[in-house]
């Protein structure tokens, strides 16, 4: 039962298939159901908004962008399947998608095999740089490392590491541990809870007993709500012990309740309150499109700029072909809501400014410290001596 197809090297030229029509397909691949839908649905919204903006401005190379939306359903093999479908079946020019590192790792071989292009919009643990992925969220040196430095200087030396039990928190904590031991911090404890864990009374008790200066929080998803509510109930306020989170943004704060997390710190590249003209416009558009009760946050912004960056690269390349777009993207600059960003050609990550913020009573985040300029992405932490041996 073999057909007459000949085996040939994988080489599907995106765009060629659809060139007869005046649309170009792009894929959007997020979890629209399951546990991750909580976070990912807004990214899809932001990406659609950017696509709409581009289409309203006349499209790309004379074509309208047509999004093909797929549901990764919070399940990694499904992500892989849908990625295959987008690349092989729909022959999309590029894909915007994923949130968790697990889903990215699942689709990575698919993109490499089919020579596709993925724009990944979430901060992550680094140690990766696939030629088929552009990373528009923060690398560790643009979020975690500066946050730890700042905390050591301003809050104290004794760190309690708390994270969800999966690759991002575990790798992030590995980095932090190396950093702490190199620059004089002290690791008090390291705790992981399964994703979706809801009872933090025991952890809070452990924190209370350990009396750290800082809790560095890499919990993801629902667990943050339970953690912050229960922390507050145990009588621990931000004055007693500071919690610094790297996966809690404005969107999550709405679920946690501002009164429960007020005063605690976060580290990101962008906040809704970030003061740039581009951001004013972005926030306004987003709210008028999706409702005034919606908020913008870092991953939403990163997803939004991913679409624009791709569009810019396409324009520059004058083609939708992956190789040409990749080439054109190198060094590309863009005035993003977070400020000026630039694609680093070497590793396809973004130059981004780093901001540490404090959660306010209204659920928004006030910037309390920031780098003056965009920081060069360094996913393998090559520029840090203490990080030697982490990346192999």
């Amino acid at each position, binding site marked *: 039962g073999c057909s007459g197809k000949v085996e040939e090297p994988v080489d599907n030229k995106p765009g060629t298939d659809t060139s007869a029509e005046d649309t170009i397909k792009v894929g959007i691949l997020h979890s*629209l*159901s*399951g*546990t991750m*839908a*909580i*976070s*990912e*649905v*807004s990214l899809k919204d932001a990406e659609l908004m950017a696509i709409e903006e581009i289409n309203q401005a006349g499209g790309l190379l004379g074509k309208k962008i047509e999004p093909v939306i797929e549901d990764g359903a919070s399940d990694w093999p499904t992500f892989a399947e849908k990625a295959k479908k987008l690349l092989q079946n729909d022959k999309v020019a590029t894909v915007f998608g994923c949130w968790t590192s697990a889903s990215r790792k699942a689709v990575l071989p698919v993109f490499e095999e089919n020579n596709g292009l993925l724009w990944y919009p979430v901060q992550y643990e680094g140690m990766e740089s696939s030629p088929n992925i552009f990373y528009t969220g923060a690398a560790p040196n643009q979020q975690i490392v500066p946050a730890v430095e700042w905390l050591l200087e301003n809050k104290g030396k004794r760190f309690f590491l708390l994270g969800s*039990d999966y690759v991002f928190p575990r790798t992030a904590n590995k980095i932090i541990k190396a950093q702490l031991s190199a620059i004089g911090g002290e690791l008090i404890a390291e*705790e*992981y*809870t*399964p994703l*979706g*864990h*809801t*009872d933090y*009374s*025991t*952890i809070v*008790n*452990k924190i*209370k*007993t350990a009396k750290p200066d800082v809790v560095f929080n890499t919990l993801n998803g*629902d*667990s*943050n*709500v*339970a953690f912050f*509510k*229960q922390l*507050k*109930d*145990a*009588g621990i306020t931000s004055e007693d012990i500071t919690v610094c989170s790297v996966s809690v943004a404005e*969107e*999550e704060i*709405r*679920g*946690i*309740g*501002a*009164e429960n997390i007020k005063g605690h710190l976060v580290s990101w590249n962008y906040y809704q309150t970030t003061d740039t003209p581009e951001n004013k416009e972005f926030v306004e558009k987003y709210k008028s499109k999706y409702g005034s009760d919606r908020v913008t946050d870092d991953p939403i912004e990163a997803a939004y700029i991913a679409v624009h960056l791709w569009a810019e690269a396409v324009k520059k390349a004058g083609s939708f072909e992956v190789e040409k777009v990749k080439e054109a993207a190198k060094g590309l600059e863009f005035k993003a809501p977070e400020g000026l960003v630039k694609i680093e050609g070497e590793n396809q990550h973004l130059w981004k400014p780093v901001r540490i913020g404090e959660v306010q009573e209204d659920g928004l985040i006030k910037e309390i410290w920031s780098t003056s300029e965009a920081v060069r992405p360094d996913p393998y932490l090559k520029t840090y001596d203490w990080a030697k041996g982490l990346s192999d």
Partner: protein
Amino acid sequence: MDSYLLQIFNGISVSSVLLLAALGLAITFGLMRIINMAHGEMIMIGAYTTYMVQNLFISFLGERYFDLYFIAAIPLSFLITGFVGYLLEISIVKRLYGRTLDSLLATWGISLILQQLARNIFGAPNVDVRSPRWLNGGVVVFGNIQLPYKRLFIILLAALCIAGVYLFLFKSDSGRRIRAVMQNRSMAESLGINTRKVDSMTFAIGSGLAGIAGCALTLLGSIGPTLGTNYIVDTFMVVVLGGVGRIIGTVAGAAAIGIGNTTFEYFTNASLGKVLVFLAVILFLQWKPQGFFSVSSRVLDE
């Protein structure tokens, strides 16, 4: 030392949460033999009801009466979730009696639908329920152990619910009727009991209790469409460990799992704690296959 004392309290507290969440299941599953995989979604409905009550209070009564919303939310969660349960019973569940395994499949379907509905109505992200101010803070004992009011309140609520369920089931005519219907539907009917009414009321009550659990959970954790999925397995474990069909077993099961979990977690970590508790339950069932309180029976094939 303080830390150990607090941990004992935490164990009791976790048990009370589990008990509250499992109590409804002890009725719909324990008595009615419906493997109600949508039980978690009933909890979710209770939580969203609380959310809506809060919003209504804010929009219509303003901040001044805000703190009272929770008092209103408890009975309303019970009623609304109970009503949803009632609707499910008269439309779907009524066709599933005596088909325990099928009930699992159908209620799984119900749970998918309810989750998606919640996503469409309230959005995928979590919503925030602010606790009433009178539940903020806690009593301080032994110098510096703070027992949060919220947790004390939940323990109290669980105790009240269990007392209510006990009195209702074992001391009232309706309770006797319910138990009779659940054991032998056609005979109960032959004695003049309107089994349809009893069925739907029982299911509604079981669901309503889940609603109360959902209301209580807003004090502790996140309220989102998948809220229920976090509790469904634990609650089934509670009922099974205690002994299916025994209310007292549910109390014992909740206590064992809650205290076991916090203890193991304290000495290891959260993941291992969970693994150890479940392992312990599996091993325990090897020894006592019917759980703590079994329902013995002479019938050849139960």
